[in-house]
């Protein structure tokens, strides 16, 4: 039924076209007398048609028999009208196992990376500690060497000039020796 209806309406709208079809017929059958009359009538009709806007029927996509691939919404997307979206529950065993294995793999990776990171940091810390210990050791040995050299110098003999100097310096530093001048305060 639908196609026939559409045809009639189309014919109505496309009035002048139909007349165009008739035009040559009339010209063939009779002389050019009828031609101009028809033309005037058609013009009037046309004018009327132009003035009055025709009521257009709206078609649904199913009525038009459009091929499915040529539709506005793609074939795969089916949107039910007026329906709530709703939640999609995961209750079957397979889906749950899949999610669980995914999550576990992710967690496993995270823990692994954490551990490797911790190990690396630990290695760095250990290396720093060793370096610090080494430096400390070096400093200590240096100090020991200086001490040793000083001791050796002192043992060489008290008569040496150098030794006197050292003695003087040490006495000044440690307040061990007697002061040369004693400060006195006098009360008048």
């Amino acid at each position, binding site marked *: 039924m639908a196609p026939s209806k559409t045809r009639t309406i189309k014919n109505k709208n496309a009035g002048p076209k139909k007349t165009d079809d008739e035009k040559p017929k009339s010209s063939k059958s009779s002389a050019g007398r009828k031609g101009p009359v028809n033309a005037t009538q058609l013009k009037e009709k046309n004018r009327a048609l132009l003035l009055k806007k025709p009521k257009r029927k709206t078609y649904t996509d199913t009525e038009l028999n459009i091929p499915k691939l040529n539709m506005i919404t793609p074939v795969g997307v089916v949107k039910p009208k007026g329906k709530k979206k709703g*939640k*999609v*529950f*995961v*209750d079957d*065993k397979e*889906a*749950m*196992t899949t*999610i*669980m*294995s*995914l*999550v*576990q793999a*992710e*967690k*496993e990776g995270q*823990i692994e990376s*954490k*551990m490797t990171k*911790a190990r690396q940091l*630990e290695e760095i810390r250990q290396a720093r500690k060793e370096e610090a210990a080494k430096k400390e050791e070096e400093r200590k040995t240096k100090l020991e060497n200086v001490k040793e050299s000083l001791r050796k110098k002192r043992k060489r003999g008290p008569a040496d000039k150098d030794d006197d100097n050292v003695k003087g310096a040490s006495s000044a530093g440690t307040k061990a020796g007697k002061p040369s001048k004693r400060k006195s305060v006098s009360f008048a």
Partner: protein
Amino acid sequence: MRPLTEQETQTLFKKLADYTGPSLKNLIAPLDNTPNADRYVFRLSGQNRVYYVLLSLANIATSISRDKLLSLGVCIGKFTKTGKFRMHITALPVIAPHARHKIWIRPNGVMPFLYGSNVVKAHVGRYSEDCPEHQGVVVYSMEDTPLGFGVTARSTIEARRLDPTGIVCFRQADCGEYLRDEDALFSTG
């Protein structure tokens, strides 16, 4: 009660995987090899609580109206309003057999832990090797009784160098909550 959505399931499993090892999948494995074998499932209640329950029991429970059904199976925890999952102490029997990392505490540390304090180095009897920082752990007494769970404050290597009063594990739930939070733990309002 309703099953969980994909997002919710993922959040829940992520939280559970914090504490448990690869044997976690045994939680949802069917009880036997028959084709229609019963299995455990997770159900979400109206108060956003997640229950670990036998499928057969969950199916029977559909005959009870939603507002009249207060609790079913074992409560694992609840979803917060921001969509995160918070585990309750009631989940301890579920996660304890599958725990990945463990901390055993000495008898002198049991009571402080059960009263809600964190685990200090002096109270630790022994702990799992190769445990990273901020990793979920199950806390046991020296007699292998699960007491609660928490999150490590230091990795195992760092914890060794810690002083006796240093915190090794932050408490998240302990069995003392059964008494302390009796009102809130099973509240249905």
